[in-house]
């Protein structure tokens, strides 16, 4: 590690619990987190992938490099110009003792442009007080077709990056335009997926769609009436990566951080705030 570069700047839309654990365990190195410059709350509680993508694009296009590492979905990395990233396969990825959920090196050229460090799966979130187990929708067709949910659904906006759009994309593929017609009568839309989950927990809405549920573990521990229903038709996954950015001001620190994110400690850290991490041997069911 370059002793002059003990800080890696992370561009992220999410709570960065990793940062705190990283600084505790990495010889004094720190990862400074730069959330989207929307509101003070957004800096602590996430905004969206579009904002991080815009930040990365702006920095790279203007040659004003602040970020060292970005927090982006693999899919998002793959459609951003590859020149915005520095290929890097973290040494931790080659650990033969780890069983990976899927190959962590996710870019087609297998160069380390996109390295998967966790996966998320989108449940149908319900308020357990408002939705009794025998009423709970079993899938996205139930959600759309049952008139009792009219006005009771909050759906992350489907017309921009994120879980709301993934749901729209795959539901239309599965059920066609009839699904769209049915859904047009049902939901209210939300930009902020974290706020939307809070609204489900409060009982303002019975059902939340397109929400990763990254605060759900804590809500459930706190006794909030919130429950995940896993749809029996299909499940949507998003894999996440932390690519090293091209021209990173602190390239060595960036690589140390990107490698650390693939280690056991990082995955345990992530598991405590709602992520499904990618390695079996690091994440037994009782951990976190």
């Amino acid at each position: 590690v370059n002793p002059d570069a003990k800080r890696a700047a992370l561009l992220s839309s999410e709570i960065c619990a990793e940062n705190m654990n990283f600084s505790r365990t990495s010889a004094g190195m720190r990862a400074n987190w730069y959330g989207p410059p929307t509101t003070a709350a957004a800096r602590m509680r996430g905004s969206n992938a579009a904002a991080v993508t815009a930040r990365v694009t702006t920095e790279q296009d203007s040659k004003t490099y602040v970020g060292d590492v970005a927090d982006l979905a693999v899919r998002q990395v793959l459609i951003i110009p590859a020149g915005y990233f520095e290929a890097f396969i973290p040494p931790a990825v080659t650990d033969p003792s780890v069983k990976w959920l899927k190959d962590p090196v996710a870019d087609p050229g297998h160069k380390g442009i996109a390295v998967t460090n966790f996966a998320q799966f989108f449940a149908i979130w319900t308020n357990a007080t408002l939705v009794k187990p025998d009423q709970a929708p079993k899938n996205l067709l139930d959600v759309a077709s049952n008139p009792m949910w009219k006005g009771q659904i909050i759906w992350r906006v489907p017309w921009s990056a994120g879980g709301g759009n993934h749901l729209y994309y795959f539901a239309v593929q599965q059920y066609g335009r009839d699904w769209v017609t049915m859904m047009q009568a049902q939901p209210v839309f939300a930009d902020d997926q974290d706020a939307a989950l809070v609204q489900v927990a409060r009982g303002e809405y019975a059902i939340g769609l397109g929400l990763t549920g990254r605060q759900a573990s804590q809500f459930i521990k706190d006794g909030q009436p919130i429950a995940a229903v896993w749809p029996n038709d299909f499940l949507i996954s998003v894999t996440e990566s932390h690519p090293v950015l091209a021209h990173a001001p602190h390239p060595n620190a960036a690589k140390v951080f990107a490698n650390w994110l693939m280690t056991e400690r990082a995955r345990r850290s992530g598991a405590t705030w709602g992520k499904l991490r990618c390695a079996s041997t690091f994440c037994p069911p009782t951990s976190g």
Partner: protein
Amino acid sequence: MRVDILPTDEWMKGAANAKQIFENFQNADDQAANYAAAMADFKK
């Protein structure tokens, strides 16, 4: 994707029973078209 690897928290475990798992890997043009379609369908 391996489905025998269980997640950490209790509420997540149902994800391992999925019959189909989809991940959205549209290219940039298709993604933009999909956003536009969603906007036409739902944004009032």
